[in-house]
């Protein structure tokens, strides 16, 4: 049976010692990290700290050094995210830290995903996400993005304060199956409707399925503005995206 001192990475040892309390989780993580290579422990440590630049560098270095993509994903990225999940559950960290860690995971997955894709693991669909013009809120969008990526979607996140033209340009550039728009204010919500009308005018409306969400958005508003779906939270966003992707694939034949 492995012990804490079997883990070579000091940061990981400290994380387990300081933040894990449930005996089964302590044992599982000690066993896990004692088994994995030091380079994978380093990746996990960088992810736990939300250091996306470092995860990017270390993942590339590991791949260039001949480490298998799945080993990096399982023993570095997922292992690190497991610690993040525990710390979040125990209120040691909160949503901003979790999103920083999710960004770090994305930085590593950027190299892993093409390798998985080459071996037949394709994304379910491509989703374009953005918060509408005039709105700087992004937490809900970021949680949806995290969920979609974790569920096998390819996501292009345009960020916040996105104009009609920027959405249109992005649709033409990235050719997504789904466009997801977020608004957190009743004053910016109409911009969702404006964007949908702009997509019609630009003749790209039929190329995408549109889902909308955000605190003030309701199914009624989604129907009024001509969206294809409404996601009331990040969890329902994934099932909605799957259903919209299926509808579009069915239409395209």
């Amino acid at each position, binding site marked *: 049976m492995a012990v804490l001192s079997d883990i070579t990475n000091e940061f990981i040892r400290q994380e387990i010692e300081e933040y894990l309390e449930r005996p089964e989780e302590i044992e599982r993580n000690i066993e896990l990290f004692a088994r994995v290579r030091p380079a994978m422990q380093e990746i996990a440590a960088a992810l736990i700290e939300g250091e996306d630049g470092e995860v990017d560098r270390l993942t590339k270095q590991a791949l260039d050094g001949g480490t298998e993509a799945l080993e990096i994903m399982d023993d570095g990225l*997922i292992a690190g*995210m*497991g610690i*993040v*999940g525990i710390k*979040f*559950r125990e*209120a*040691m*960290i*909160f*949503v*901003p*830290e*979790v999103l920083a860690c*999710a960004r770090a995971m994305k930085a590593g997955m950027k190299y892993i995903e093409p390798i998985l894709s080459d071996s037949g*693991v394709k994304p379910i669909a491509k989703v374009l996400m953005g918060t509408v013009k005039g709105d*700087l*809120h*992004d*937490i809900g969008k970021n*949680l949806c993005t*995290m*969920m979609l990526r*974790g*569920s*096998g979607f390819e996501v292009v996140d345009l960020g*916040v304060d996105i104009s009609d033209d920027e959405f249109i340009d992005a649709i033409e550039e990235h050719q997504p199956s789904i466009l997801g728009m977020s608004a*957190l*204010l*009743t*004053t910016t*919500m*109409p911009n969702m*409707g*404006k964007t949908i*009308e702009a997509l*019609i*005018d630009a003749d790209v409306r039929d190329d995408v399925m549109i889902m909308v969400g955000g*605190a*003030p958005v309701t199914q*009624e*508003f989604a129907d*009024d*503005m*001509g969206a294809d779906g409404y996601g009331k*939270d*990040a*969890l329902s966003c*994934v099932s909605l995206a799957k259903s919209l992707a299926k509808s579009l694939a069915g239409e395209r034949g």
Partner: protein
Amino acid sequence: MERISEMFTDMVAHAEAVCKTRCPYRDRKDRCTAEFRCRNQRQPETAGAPLICGHDGEFDYRSAWESNPLAHARTKKKLGEIRDGATRRRAASRRKKTD
């Protein structure tokens, strides 16, 4: 991918619960990570440091983001105007083409 999905599902479910009483832009050091203004933002003691969240967990913070939380009726009307305007504009454009 299934393991990632399961892990994220748990985390997002927890985030939804936490967000009912704690602003999701408030980090573990009680600093505000929002890019927008909020009534709960307080100046830090050190100049140039990130803003501090003054929310005390006793009320729904979300009202601080919304300048007029009772604006749903106005929004619905605005959406209707946008759609009607777009429909009229397209009809006028089609008439011009056929003329």
